[in-house]
């Protein structure tokens, strides 16, 4: 059936298929967006509901049956440690990202590029670190945290979180380094750069998408972490978002539902927004790298 002539019928069929494909694409895109963001949209509505509206089984949960109120946001901002938790999460996240990059960038370069015979086994060893779950380490780590004098301090998280982020980051960066041809830095070394110079001036800029990926990963892992944060810290001024909100706004069996939903939306939207900016650049850089490679 090797026809080189494209008939009108072919063209017609192609156009029809193309249109069907577009419709399917939009349908799946809309369904995914609804499935992913639906709970947040609903949470945003709930945030502004009065108690008498929310706690009535017959009321439509997706609209305001009574006048909306901002009382619950006021409660969240003024009467809870929400702002403190958010600030703690932010600075812990930034410091953990910096420590992670400082440790994993050289390590990944060493394992991917410097051709040592132990690089393979060592890479796998670092990967296996990821197999030791926080649930297992939490008991003994809290003793170490006490020994370091960091109990009940947000700094304990700055020290411990890189143990979660470094192994993943090293592996990610090794993967990205493999996509950069070795010729590029060999050429730079021929041109007079030292090994370190070639790495810093030539490889690191090309590795930019990988570095962004590490930042994204390290920050989300850090902001989401729950068990360590719960275990090491009890004073509320030192807590981070992921433990502070559930413990401060859930008192016994009383849930401050609207404020809890407000907290989820207020945290979710900015993080997703920033990551979406990064994601675009990350993907642009990635495709560019692939074309050049």
């Amino acid at each position, binding site marked *: 059936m090797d026809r080189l002539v494209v008939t009108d019928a072919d063209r017609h069929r192609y156009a029809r298929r193309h249109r069907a494909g577009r419709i399917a694409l939009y349908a799946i895109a809309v369904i995914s967006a609804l499935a992913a963001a639906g709970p947040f949209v609903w949470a945003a509505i709930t945030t502004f509901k009065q108690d008498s509206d929310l706690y009535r089984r017959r009321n439509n949960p997706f609209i305001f049956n009574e006048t909306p109120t901002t009382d619950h946001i006021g409660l969240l901002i003024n009467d809870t440690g929400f702002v403190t938790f958010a600030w703690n999460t932010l600075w812990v996240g930034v410091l953990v990202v910096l420590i992670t990059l400082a440790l994993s960038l050289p390590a990944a370069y060493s394992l991917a590029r410097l051709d040592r015979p132990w690089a393979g086994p060592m890479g796998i060893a670092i990967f296996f670190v990821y197999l030791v779950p926080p649930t297992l380490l939490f008991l003994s780590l809290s003793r170490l945290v006490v020994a370091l004098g960091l109990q009940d301090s947000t700094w304990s998280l700055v020290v411990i979180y890189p143990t979660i982020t470094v192994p993943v980051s090293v592996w990610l960066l090794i993967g990205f380094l493999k996509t950069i041809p070795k010729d590029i830095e060999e050429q730079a070394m021929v041109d007079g750069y030292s090994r370190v110079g070639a790495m810093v001036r030539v490889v690191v800029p090309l590795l930019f998408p990988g570095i962004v*990926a590490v930042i994204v990963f390290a920050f989300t892992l850090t902001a989401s972490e729950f068990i360590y944060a719960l275990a090491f810290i009890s004073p509320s001024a030192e807590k981070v978002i992921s433990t502070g909100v559930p413990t401060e706004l859930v008192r016994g069996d009383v849930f401050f539902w609207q404020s809890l939903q407000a907290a989820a939306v207020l945290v979710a*939207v900015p993080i997703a927004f920033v990551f979406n900016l990064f994601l675009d650049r990350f993907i642009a850089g990635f495709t560019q790298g692939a074309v050049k490679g």
Partner: protein
Amino acid sequence: MAAPPDVAARRRLADRDGALAWIFLSPAVVYILALVGLPFVLAVAFSLSDVTGGDPSFDWVGLQNFERIFSDPVFWRSLRNTFVFTAVSMFFIVLFGKVLANVLIADFKGRWLVRFLVLLPWTTPVALSTITWLWLLDSVFSPIDWVLRQIGLLQTNMFWLGQPTLAMASVIAVHVWRLVPLAAVIMMAGLLSIPKDVQEQALVDGAGYWRRMFEVTIPLTAPVIAISALFGAIFTFTDMTVVYVLTRGGPTNETQVLASWAFFRGIEGSDIGQGAAIALFLFPLLLAAAIAILRAVRRMEVG
């Protein structure tokens, strides 16, 4: 033209690959040995001891903790749940992640908005988004029940978290919901790493969408899919946040997984020795899974 001596010395060090390899690697290795290796050894020691929250003195009890957890039916229940939770979650995460990745790399109007919305479940701290779900699945006020009642499919309430099968399904659904975006992003990066000319060649050769998908795209991205599935499986296997916030293992341990049970025993039950023993049980299983998948990936890279 001789360089100043200190520059020359630095130059030589900066060029000695062997020394550099160690200098570059050792900070990460030392950090991990101190804060993962040492606690891991301590945890093994705890599992062989009678350390409790009330009595932190260390006494050797051999394998007693292990004998006790093996004779407890809740342990076997949790073990089974862990496998169900991981296998079912991973199946849907890989499936939906793959579909979503294909949608997100396509060019269409409103792509930025769709990406933003789709990323939300992953970028939100899981304890917060799970609390949103806790209310969505509430036994009385669940909006999902409200919709089902409006369509006439339901008379009263589903009690999502109160019935064993539904509770497990809820836990799995929330976990899938939050991890699919991550899987999609990783697979998207994999898809974009396929050289354009390979795709174009296949198109020129007259391969249709599905043929290109199964004969070009999937084989070329298989290592990326395998690696992201490996990370996801390990993460799922050891994660307990969704279970902890949503059901606390209930009703009557029907959604209990090993990680959450270790937490309840070790922390809330204060039996640190037993908690450590249960948690340690995760380790050989993880090791076996990881070795199996790493091997598969290596075979693919060679072949």
